[in-house]
């Protein structure tokens, strides 16, 4: 801990010794992370970049192959563009709906006086359901044969879709699952909403502004940074969207993807494919490690672009430095 100012003179041997000791101490404290970053971030990243230019099946050593894998993934691999399109769909629909739902729930819980903390608990709890368990629960709830949702809809005379077994309804079904787990956003929005100065609302009410105008002109501007944060982290989470779609596809189809088996990913009909699933499909099912590394690099670049947004926009991520 350097609470003292950095020593100015280089002549003083005592100070120099102390600076060296400080450097060693910093290194010692950082050592787990320095090792970890090297072993589990930089090394794999460099290797992934290298392997993306080679032909490699995991057994015979990699052979330089130029841009072959890249053209294969972008031109001939049938799942790449569907996965990109699905990702875009999830960004536009799922991320937006999650933010709207989180905001609505946050506003609701804040305005309800009685049972405030019970409500908060109820809305938050599903966020903690293990993703595999939550996905299984929703595949059951929405199954066309005995699922309670379609049974209830039938009572009202609605002919319900096949959800996870229908290519045009599987993404909406996954969206419902994601909305059930919106509790994290709700809690973040609640904290931001409580930070808006009360006097502003009172002054606006005295001036005759209705609830909607108060929301538009006071609440929303105050929430802008946190909304931006939610959008960017939502996009980043979509890049990582893996467990729910792959488990939903596997359980709904009754097939488990395994090492080397050719079970087609993204059931039904590629509609639940996301980019991370392609890494698994190419690398661990088709043993086309070069092509898998191409997708990994695409994922890396996309994630870093949005991470840079997040850091660039500040949002106080690096705040509190000194």
């Amino acid at each position: 801990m350097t609470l003292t100012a950095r020593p100015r003179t280089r002549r003083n041997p005592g100070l120099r010794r102390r600076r060296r000791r400080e450097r060693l101490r910093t290194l010692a404290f950082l050592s787990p992370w320095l090792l970890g970053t090297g072993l589990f971030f930089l090394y794999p990243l460099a290797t992934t970049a290298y392997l993306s230019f080679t032909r490699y099946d995991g057994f015979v050593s990699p052979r330089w192959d130029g841009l072959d894998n890249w053209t294969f993934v972008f031109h001939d691999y049938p799942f790449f563009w569907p996965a990109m399109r699905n990702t875009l769909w999830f960004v536009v629909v799922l991320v937006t709906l999650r933010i709207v739902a989180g905001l609505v729930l946050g506003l609701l819980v804040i305005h309800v006086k009685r049972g405030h903390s019970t409500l908060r608990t109820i809305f938050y709890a599903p966020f903690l359901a293990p993703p595999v368990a939550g996905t299984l629960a929703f595949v059951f709830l929405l199954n066309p044969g005995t699922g309670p949702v379609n049974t209830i809809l039938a009572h009202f005379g609605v002919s319900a879709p096949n959800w996870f077994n229908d290519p045009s309804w599987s993404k909406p079904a996954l969206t419902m699952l994601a909305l059930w787990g919106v509790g994290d956003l709700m809690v973040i929005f609640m904290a931001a909403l409580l930070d808006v100065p009360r006097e502003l609302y009172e002054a606006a009410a005295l001036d005759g502004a209705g609830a909607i105008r108060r929301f538009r002109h006071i609440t929303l501007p105050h929430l802008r940074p946190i909304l931006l944060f939610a959008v960017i982290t939502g996009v980043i989470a979509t890049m990582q969207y893996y467990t729910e779609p792959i488990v939903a596809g596997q359980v709904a189809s009754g097939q488990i993807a395994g090492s080397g088996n050719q079970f087609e990913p993204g059931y039904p009909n590629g509609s639940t494919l996301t980019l991370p699933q392609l890494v698994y499909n190419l690398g661990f099912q088709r043993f086309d490690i070069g092509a898998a590394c191409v997708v990994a690099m695409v994922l890396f670049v996309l994630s870093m672009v949005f991470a840079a947004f997040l850091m660039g926009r500040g949002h106080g991520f690096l705040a509190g430095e000194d």
Partner: protein
Amino acid sequence: MAVTVVEPRYRRRRLLEWVALHSFAVALALLFVLPFVFVMLTGVMTDQQSLTREYWPQPFAWHNLVDVWHTPGFSTWWRNTIVYAVFGTALTLLSSLPVAYALAYFRFRGRNVAMMVVIATMMLPPQVSIIPLYLVWAQNFHLTGTLYPLIIPLAFGDAFSIFLLRQFMLTVPREYLEAARIDGCGDLRTMLRVVIPMIRPAIAAVGLFQFFYCWNDYFGPQIYASENPGAWTLSYGLQTFKSAHHTNWNLTMAATVLVMAPVIVLFFLAQKAFIEGVTLTGVKG
């Protein structure tokens, strides 16, 4: 005069608003609870009943929960998950605390770059680095099919935990650190005796997050453990449950309950730490 006319109407409007708001809240709360309810009800139905469209178990087949426990593998998955979560959490905290301390209080060249790398690794999908890592674990260490590739990396600091712990550490008033230094405490002693006791709730929150992360992790076990059923965790085993055992939804839902239960119970025990932790990830920054 005008006042006496407006008042009751205004009050009635307020009352209507109150009723509308509260009915909306109750309706939504029901919507959020119902999935849990249906899962639990189906989990205790008999085999025959789970093939029907009925909601209410008749009779309650409580033995389903015991039967699930005794299906081959289930107790092994439990044990593996607990090993992964407990050792993973302990190692994460041990390795991340000093790093967070250095990033919060030490001044050194490259600290901002280090923070940026921490945030970048936090945002990185695990799939980006999985192939070289898998190859090393499989070819150089022959440790695939065990829990080691899942647990060992956590001994080298976890970006999210480092980030969160650092943010909490920045809230400790500088005077305490100053006082410890004047009393002759080195950094290690300051960290152990001053900072860690002061951010104990934060450590609880970070520990819980990591515990949940391990408990819920699907991708890691899928990559490293899937080849050996003896190393499966609950998350990985659960998805194979329905197809592997040709069971009906009732046993699958009973298994789902058994996987969800510990997490939900833990949440109720430590609700405050949790919600504070989530809030800090977003708001404080």
